[in-house]
């Protein structure tokens, strides 16, 4: 099997990431407005208003990856918060309280945005922060979608987005330019659809994209929605993946077992994934990275009519652009119920030829850990797949038992033939 090769597009990725953080650092000096919000706010709309969005979860991940989590989470607890809610948010709040972050000083906001996309913390986090920083706040309520999609779901989200645009106009004291909104929405959807295509290359055997690559290359789909740079990057990445697949270049030197990784990774312990690659336990797919793409509506609760309502249409004006954003969000939310999750796992295991699963019982994220015990049992009992569950946290190393976890994983890898 050919040895793995570094990606030629990596410098392009680094340039995109660096310029994003540079823009955040220099926004205020350049007279630009800065927003704070959860990762799944409609940041393409924010960008269309030429406002720089600081996104909570990626920021929290960067804090943890940068070794700042112990200090930042301690500051958050000292302020009076508990230690059970979202660990990304505990890093973010700590960054504000200490003014320490992976990009230096914490860029302060002019406005704050919440959006209930999958968990209640998404609204509480930034509503609370807006009171701490005394800045205007807007909360977007997103339906959770346990049943079918009907027109009133779309209208509900769309009408809130219209109010959201008015809020942005009021705070920024300028009007939304229709062409910019349409372009940003179109580019956002395109980038996310391309990200889904990128991930699908891992259906190939051997898989060309390591989990570490996936976690890096997801940045444009997560943090640069609405930009041309995100689209251009994914087009370049797809071109390189095509080439790698043609030549049989693999993500890891040996692919002994194909793994599904569930939940967010422990960002402070990324060496785990190098270890897994070296053992030939290759993570080919993860719902966490797939979340930021455009998945097909497979929820069994969606009728043909509901799926038709969600069908993509190229927007040409303000209302259409907001409607398309509403549809994109509702499509994501249609995966929130357990039957939809099981349908996704069932299909994914088949499509990606998954042979074993690692379930990170992530104490730091209530949404992505929801009903994962049910899913793990389903994979074990119905799909006869070996599954290892282990506790940890995405961004709080206090909840991670390194020795115990590595020991469990070692034993599991031996069991599945990658020891």
């Amino acid at each position: 099997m050919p040895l793995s090769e570094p990606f030629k597009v990596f410098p392009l990725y680094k340039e995109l990431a660096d310029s994003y953080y540079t823009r955040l650092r220099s926004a205020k000096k350049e007279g630009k407005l800065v927003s704070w919000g959860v990762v799944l706010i409609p940041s393409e709309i924010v960008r269309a208003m030429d406002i720089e969005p600081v996104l909570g979860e990626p920021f929290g991940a960067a804090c943890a990856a940068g070794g700042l989590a112990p200090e930042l989470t301690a500051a958050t607890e000292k302020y009076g918060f508990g230690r059970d809610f979202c660990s990304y948010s505990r890093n973010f709040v700590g960054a504000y309280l200490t003014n320490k972050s992976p990009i230096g000083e914490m860029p302060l906001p002019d406005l704050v945005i919440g959006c209930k996309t999958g968990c209640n913390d998404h609204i509480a986090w930034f509503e609370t922060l807006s009171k701490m920083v005394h800045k205007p706040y807007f909360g977007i309520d997103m339906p959770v979608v346990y049943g079918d999609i009907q027109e009133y779901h779309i209208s509900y989200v769309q009408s809130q987005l219209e109010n959201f645009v008015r809020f942005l106009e009021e705070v920024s004291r300028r009007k939304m330019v229709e062409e910019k909104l349409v372009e940003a929405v179109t580019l956002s959807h395109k980038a996310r659809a391309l990200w889904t295509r990128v991930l699908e290359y891992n259906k190939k055997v051997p898989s060309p994209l390591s989990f570490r690559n996936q976690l890096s290359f997801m940045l444009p789909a997560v943090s640069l929605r609405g930009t041309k740079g995100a689209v251009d990057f994914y087009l370049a990445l797809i071109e390189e993946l095509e080439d790698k697949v043609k030549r049989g270049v693999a993500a890891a030197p040996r692919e002994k077992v194909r793994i599904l990784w569930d939940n967010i990774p422990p960002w402070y312990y990324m060496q785990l994934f190098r270890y897994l690659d070296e053992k030939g336990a290759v993570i080919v797919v993860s719902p966490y990275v797939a979340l930021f793409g455009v998945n097909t509506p497979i929820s069994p609760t969606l009728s043909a009519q509901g799926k038709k309502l969600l069908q993509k249409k190229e927007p040409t004006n303000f209302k259409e652009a907001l409607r398309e954003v509403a549809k994109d969000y509702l499509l994501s939310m249609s995966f929130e119920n357990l039957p939809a999750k099981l349908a996704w796992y069932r299909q994914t295991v088949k499509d990606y030829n998954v042979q074993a699963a690692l379930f990170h019982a992530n104490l730091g994220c209530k949404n992505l850990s929801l009903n994962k015990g049910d899913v793990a049992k389903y994979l074990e009992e119905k799909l006869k797949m070996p599954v290892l569950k282990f506790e940890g946290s995405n961004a709080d190393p206090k909840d991670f038992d390194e020795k115990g976890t590595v020991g469990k994983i070692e034993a599991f890898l031996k069991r599945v033939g990658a020891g």
Partner: protein
Amino acid sequence: MKKTFESLIQDRHNNLRNLKQQGRKIVGYFCSYCPEEIVYAAGLVPVRVLGGEGLYSSSSNYLYSCYCSYSHGCLNEGLKGDTDYLAGIVYAYACEHTRGVFDSWRMHIPTKYAGFLDMPAWVNTSEAVKFYTEELKGFKKGLEGALGVKVTEESLVKAIELCNRSRSLLREIYQLKKSSPPVVSGAEVFSMVLSSTVYPKDEHNKLLTRTLAGLKRRKNRVGGKRLMVLGADLHYPGIIAAIEGQGAVVVADELCTGSRYIWEDVKLGGDPWEAIACRYLGGINCPVKHPMEGRLSHIEKMLQEFAVEGVLLLDNDKCDPVEWAEPLIKQMLQKKNIPWSSVEIAGIAVKEDIPKVAEATRKLIGG
């Protein structure tokens, strides 16, 4: 009187099995946002799942340890078969913990009906009212189809009147705690409110009416430091009793199973569906609903109207919404020079919580 209402809570499973044998269909819910009016209008009896005694066991096969004891307790109770009298379950979106219970329950516990209501988290907009009114109508259709029942305009109005009557009686009793010292203890009132969630309201209202008449004649008063408790789900009357056992009286609360459950009525007169939506969205918000101002202003009002001298924060373990709001609440209490103490509890009946609560109370009242 206390024993009667407490026994309704303790013997709820037997009571509800008897009710089922009498031909009544019972539907369980995990959160106060269940629109009980619609369930009653369908001829069904809505009851709250309180979670069993002690800590969870089987539920940890499905829910990770980061979910609260209340969610584990509810799921465990269902998995053990304690609630086998339920014809179905209903869940109006509140938080991820209880949402997880709903999904695991319908997957692993045989149930004829599992109804989900997508209740907005951001509640003070006209868009939310419009959306939720549609959800309620959809909920009604689902209930009718699954359980072979019918909701008419007439039955809905009657059900609203029933639930409003229950809340009105409970509020009248609750208001007796304003007097100093009051004739009724916090533990007694808490048991009355909680038992109304596990017993048919038509019968419960009769008990309340008799009780209220008796309280108006009562001479003995309950002395002690006037405390308010804040929190979320509390299903264990022993907690309130433990607080009052330290020389306090719980004159006010802001709990899902306390004042939040009874403070607002459905306003009759216009479209009843929209009226129900407005009541649940616009009522006194639990920590899961936003904006926070609704909850904060209710707390401030209660502090004043009930002449509260100290506040005990009952923090449901691993409860994100409670944890988020806590610094703001503590800052508010500090500004008002109201002493406070906090203690983590399970919310369900866990005996180990009693000494912790007693200690936190002693710390608060300086005993």
